[in-house]
């Protein structure tokens, strides 16, 4: 099948799900920047892959020619009947352009303001500490599956007001939708179960409203009218889908780096005041999220003839490794002073949950390092997920 054939030419037939790209996209971006900085493929419809910082930022800001109506890196190979019926607007604000984007984003932002996020820190810290304590005596752990994967989903469930006990189920749905996007049955099943769940949660809140995000979205009035239920559902699904894989991947990649680079780990333990710049640097070097845009009318961009309906992958991770934008771009420098990274995007779609993600990443690293300052990669395979979100899925580590 053409979608999964090995890649021979990255410039003209790239594949973000290729195992070489998932394992090490960095050298591929470096090669492309020097030869063909905006790559192309027809594997899943005509799709472009920019690799330079300035190009990615310019694309993100040109919302007139590059729409967010399709943000999935891997286009749906099949229809999801429930999704099409229940979510005519997709997952606003991420899948919307202005004006829908503008007002739906304003509904969401206060829930992730830095004031609100401070309020979620205590719960996050207790969660992280408890997780480390559960495997501390064993001298080994899977830092991805036993730790990173367990954190954001519970914080998001708490904010949404849905049962924390269902965290593993939520994680499964999100992985079905984001990580197994090339498996239509799995993707359809995950999306359908996730939406069916939220439909029931919304129904329950009609008679038993709470003070959670979902209840408040249902109560909100915009210009004198209640927000449409399809918008409430789409936004709630977005918070879950966008708030789980992403931050879990950032935590996992950061722990992978600290396991594999003892000099950085020891420095961060010895100089905890470096944590703020270290967090930004780890976000830059291992940015998890690639988004997509769809071309609204034929346009030439950097010499590339982009056609109406083409996809453009918003390669924020690649932009953050561009040596023209960052000195020593492929080196992690924990006290990097100048770091205009775009791990959370650029322009009007800047990640609405960035304050929360930063807090979770910082607290997860602090609680781990406080208990396990010395650890290294175990003699076992590290596996990575890629595509829309890149991060380790198994990360076996050992500690004395």
């Amino acid at each position, binding site marked *: 099948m053409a979608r999964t054939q090995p890649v021979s030419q990255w410039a003209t037939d790239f594949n973000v799900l290729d195992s070489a790209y998932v394992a090490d996209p960095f050298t591929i971006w470096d090669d492309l920047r020097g030869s063909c900085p905006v790559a192309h493929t027809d594997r899943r419809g005509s799709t472009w892959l920019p690799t330079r910082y300035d190009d990615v930022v310019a694309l993100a800001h040109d919302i007139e020619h590059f729409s967010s109506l399709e943000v999935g890196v891997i286009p749906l190979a099949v229809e999801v009947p429930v999704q099409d019926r229940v979510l005519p607007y997709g997952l606003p604000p991420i899948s919307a352009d202005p004006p829908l984007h503008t007002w739906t984003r304003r509904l969401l932002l206060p829930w992730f*303001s830095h004031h609100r996020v401070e309020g979620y820190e205590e719960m996050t810290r207790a969660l992280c500490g408890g997780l480390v304590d559960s495997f501390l005596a064993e001298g080994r752990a899977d830092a991805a599956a036993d730790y990173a994967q367990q954190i954001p989903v519970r914080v998001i469930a708490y904010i949404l007001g849905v049962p924390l006990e269902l965290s593993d189920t939520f994680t499964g749905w999100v992985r079905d939708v984001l990580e197994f996007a090339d498996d239509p049955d799995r993707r359809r099943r995950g999306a359908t179960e996730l939406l069916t769940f939220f439909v029931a949660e919304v129904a329950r809140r009609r008679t038993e409203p709470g003070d959670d995000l979902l209840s408040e979205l249902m109560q909100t009035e915009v210009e004198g009218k209640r927000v449409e239920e399809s918008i409430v559902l789409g936004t709630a699904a977005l918070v879950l889908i966008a708030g789980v894989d992403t931050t879990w991947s950032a935590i996992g990649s950061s722990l992978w780096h600290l396991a594999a680079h003892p000099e950085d780990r020891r420095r961060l333990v010895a100089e905890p005041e470096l944590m703020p710049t270290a967090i930004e640097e780890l976000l830059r070097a291992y940015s998890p999220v690639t988004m997509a845009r769809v071309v609204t009318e034929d346009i030439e961009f950097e010499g590339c003839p982009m056609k109406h309906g083409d996809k453009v992958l918003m390669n924020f991770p690649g932009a953050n490794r561009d040596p023209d934008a960052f000195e020593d771009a492929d080196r992690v420098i924990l006290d990097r002073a100048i770091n205009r990274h*775009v791990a959370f995007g*650029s322009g009007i779609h800047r990640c609405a949950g960035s304050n929360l993600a930063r807090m979770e990443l910082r607290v997860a690293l602090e609680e781990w390092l406080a208990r396990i300052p010395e650890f290294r990669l175990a003699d076992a395979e590290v596996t990575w997920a890629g595509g829309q979100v890149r991060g380790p899925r198994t990360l076996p580590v050992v500690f004395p």
Partner: protein
Amino acid sequence: MKIRVDPEKCQGHARCYGLAPELFDVDDYGLASVRGDGSVPAALEDKARLAIANCPEYAVEALPD
């Protein structure tokens, strides 16, 4: 030194607030603003320069003297 945040450019990355909460605030919608009239005490000028250099949207700027 005097600084400002361009509200047309700010997208709420909150990098300025993270680096220099003494100089910036961010509202519930992510929009950053300078505290007071934007005058930077001499002791905080390095932090102000860092905030300018780290904004992904080039929204923080020094005003001409």
